[in-house]
């Protein structure tokens, strides 16, 4: 194939790049595009190297000519100006030659693109939903679904603690997929546009509210692959990472089974009565994970953008209204409907917490069964 042939021919030139990368020898990932772990990302990498070297080659010719001229044809060297200023033949040549080069680049590019867009015959389908600022995953054939949020503590971000190894690229619930299977993602969003991108998987797709975009990957090697939201989505756009764990088939099956078990336990827990202390403890945690990004840990919100819950009319008013706002959100604002994202227990805990924290001492206790009834 053209791509690989050109690459071989240019391996010698790659030495120059290696010189640069030696400075930051740790991984090829740091300086150049990653080769990644999927056929798609490898195709993209090959295309990348091809155009890069074509551009370098053209650059050498063009700049080379120019610098020869700059050195030789100076007035201070006694150069007398020639007076030629037109040549149709030359113009035609340097229109056609670049055109031919472009066509030869377009052919492999087309081939790569067609392969990338082919989402047919997939083995598993996962629905991915972008939220401000977290990702929801829904294994459509397994009934497994969960939310994945940033796991880096605030203290690290605000420089009060040393930064961890995977600073900003770590989540509480990674998405787990089997290796060597064609995984199809159905990507959408619940609020604004996000984009799902893991460099080593070689593909990026926007999450558009109201529409579904498809993409696929097939991972060759087991491992953990990290990425980030790649479309500006507001304040915490820089803080909604993606972590993919690729496991072998057996481990993947085991993981699915565990997830189902946890879900059943959750459902059972919703049927019993919870104490105030239990709810407050769980509520504080879940509030921090889901709500604090906007309403802040202090419950004071950000004036003009996110309302305070401390002393808010809704959070201290009738329970039903409060529950409604949290479960169904408010259309047209950043306040999302959390009914689909959180379990009954979590919703009950959060609402209870909000009604009793920060001096909102209403004393109200909301049971998971009430939430279940409100669905």
């Amino acid at each position: 194939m053209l791509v690989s042939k050109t690459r071989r021919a240019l391996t010698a030139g790659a030495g120059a790049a290696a010189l640069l990368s030696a400075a930051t020898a740790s991984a090829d990932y740091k300086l150049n595009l990653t080769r990644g772990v999927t056929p798609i990302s490898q195709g993209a990498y090959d295309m990348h190297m091809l155009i890069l070297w074509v551009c370098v080659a053209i650059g050498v010719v063009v700049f080379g000519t120019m610098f020869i001229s700059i050195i030789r044809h100076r007035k201070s060297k006694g150069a007398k100006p020639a007076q030629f200023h037109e040549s149709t033949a030359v113009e035609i040549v340097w229109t056609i030659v670049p055109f031919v080069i472009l066509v030869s680049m377009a052919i492999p590019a087309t081939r790569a693109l067609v392969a990338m867009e082919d989402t047919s015959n997939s083995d598993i389908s996962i629905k991915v939903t972008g939220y401000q600022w977290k990702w929801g995953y829904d294994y459509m054939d397994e009934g497994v679904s969960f939310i994945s949020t940033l796991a880096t503590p605030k203290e690290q971000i605000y420089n009060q603690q040393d930064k961890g190894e995977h600073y900003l690229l770590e989540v509480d619930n990674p998405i787990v997929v089997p290796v060597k299977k064609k995984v199809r993602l159905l990507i959408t969003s619940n609020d604004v546009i996000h984009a799902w991108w893991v460099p080593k998987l070689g593909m990026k797709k926007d999450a558009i509210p109201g529409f579904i975009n498809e993409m696929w990957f097939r991972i060759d090697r087991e491992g953990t692959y990290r990425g980030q939201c790649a479309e500006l989505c507001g304040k915490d756009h820089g803080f909604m990472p993606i972590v993919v764990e690729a496991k072998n088939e057996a481990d993947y099956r085991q993981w699915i089974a565990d997830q189902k078990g946890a879900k059943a336990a959750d459902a059972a827990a919703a049927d019993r009565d919870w104490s105030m202390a239990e709810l407050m403890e769980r509520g504080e945690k879940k509030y921090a994970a889901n709500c604090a990004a906007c309403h802040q840990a202090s419950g004071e919100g950000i004036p003009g953008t996110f309302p305070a819950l401390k002393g808010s009319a809704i959070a201290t008013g009738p329970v039903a209204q409060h529950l409604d706002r949290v479960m169904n959100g408010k259309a047209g604002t950043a306040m999302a409907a959390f009914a689909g994202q959180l379990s009954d227990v979590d919703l009950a805990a959060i609402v209870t917490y909000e009604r009793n924290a920060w001096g909102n001492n209403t004393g109200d206790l909301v049971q998971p069964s009430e939430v279940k009834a409100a669905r």
Partner: protein
Amino acid sequence: MSTATTHDAHHEEHPSGLARWIFTTNHKDIGTLYLLFALLMFIVGGAMAMIIRAELFEPGLQFVEPQFFNSMTTMHALVMIFGAVMPAFVGLANWLIPMMIGAPDMALPRMNNWSFWILPFAFAILISTLFMDGGAPAGGWTMYPPLVLQTGNAFPFLIFAVHLMGISSIMGAINVIVTIINMRAPGMTMMKMPLFVWTWLITAYLLIATMPVLAGSVTMLLTDRFFDTSFFDAAGGGDPVMFQHIFWFFGHPEVYILILPAFGIVSQIIPTFARKPLFGYSSMVYATASIAFLSFIVWAHHMFTVGMPLTGELFFMYATMLIAVPTGVKVFNWVSTMWKGSMTFETPMLFAVGFVVMFTIGGFSGLMLAIAPVDFQYHDTYFVVAHFHYVLVTGAVFAIMGATYYWLPKWTGHMYSEKLGKLHFWLSTISVNVLFFPQHFLGLAGMPRRIPDYSPQFTEFNQLSSIGGFAFGLTQLLFVYIVIQTIRGGEKASEQVWEGAHGLEWTLPSPPPYHSFSTAPEIK
């Protein structure tokens, strides 16, 4: 015959002080106003860039909160594009087009005054949003819904500021077109016009065709937010991506609006200092026109990841790649103009040569972005940021600086300090590459754009980039100093100023008379 015999005959009529500038209809005064305004906005936008670079110096949040960081990114881009580069080009057009085509003034002088005097108001509105509830716009200069609809009180002010900038640009563009078509001196046929005039003519067409589309798209944002329409809301049958199509139908031609006049400037400077006529004049004109034409059919290369049908992706990929052909013709023509010339390297020439090299580097990365299957990797990373700063800063801004050095003696009647000018060039060129070249690596390594904080693996290159940024910023203080120094005095400039300069503007005295050509000059 040619030069103005009646110059300054009306001096007593001109109001002085502030009134002169507010009420002026003179193309040179208005040109000066535009240029000074652009310089001011360059400093404002640059200050915002410095905040960005300071925050990105290290991982972690140091100086600003994420929301404010996004405001800085957004405002930096709006101020630089609409406040600095576009007004600078319009200022150059005002100063130079009448002088280059042998006209007394612009065709519609009163409207000319208005096009300028809308701008300070528009930017006062835009910048005042920094102090509003909810902060300044933070949805990126591309203003994508639904995110931009979450803007606080600043939202309608953002929309109206954009409307005002649009009105100003459209009036400016109409004026340029009418002046060029209608005011040329006898004998100045279209194919004898200097290339700066040609590139501006084509730029003006792009402006008239696209600014109203931008106005339409932001109007739809306004009604979606306040009047219940559903253009960009799937529940009502609309589509957020529809905004992107409309925006980029404006946005892509816009980037050529930001570069075509720069092509014109470079095509004036290189022949002068090569002491050799421009190679391939007519092919330059056709290439410019082809670029302008193609710019209307490539917009969706900014949107390869939105989930277009495959055929759409292929079409926009091919069309975008094609733009390399006419742009290449331009680059080859510049190099051929230098070939076998008798070159000297005064500051304007240095900037022009710097432009050719660094713009081409930016063009190469543009071509790489055009390849859809790899753009999925590059998109929304610092690789894109590196691309567009190469074409915008070392392209457009370098050309504007080159133009300033080239024509400043004509405008002021004084020579600038060649020593300081060269120092400015070399410091700028070194620092700007330290600033933007590492951003290619950051992007390839996977750093997304528009983030206030990043994973530590990106630290080194960010630090390098920030250092380059501060150095480049400080270097621009030197530029400001040189310009002020030249305005205030210095060695007297001759009419022709440069040994190799040709063209009508060099037949006028330096500084030129109040009305450039009271009687139209003859063109051989």
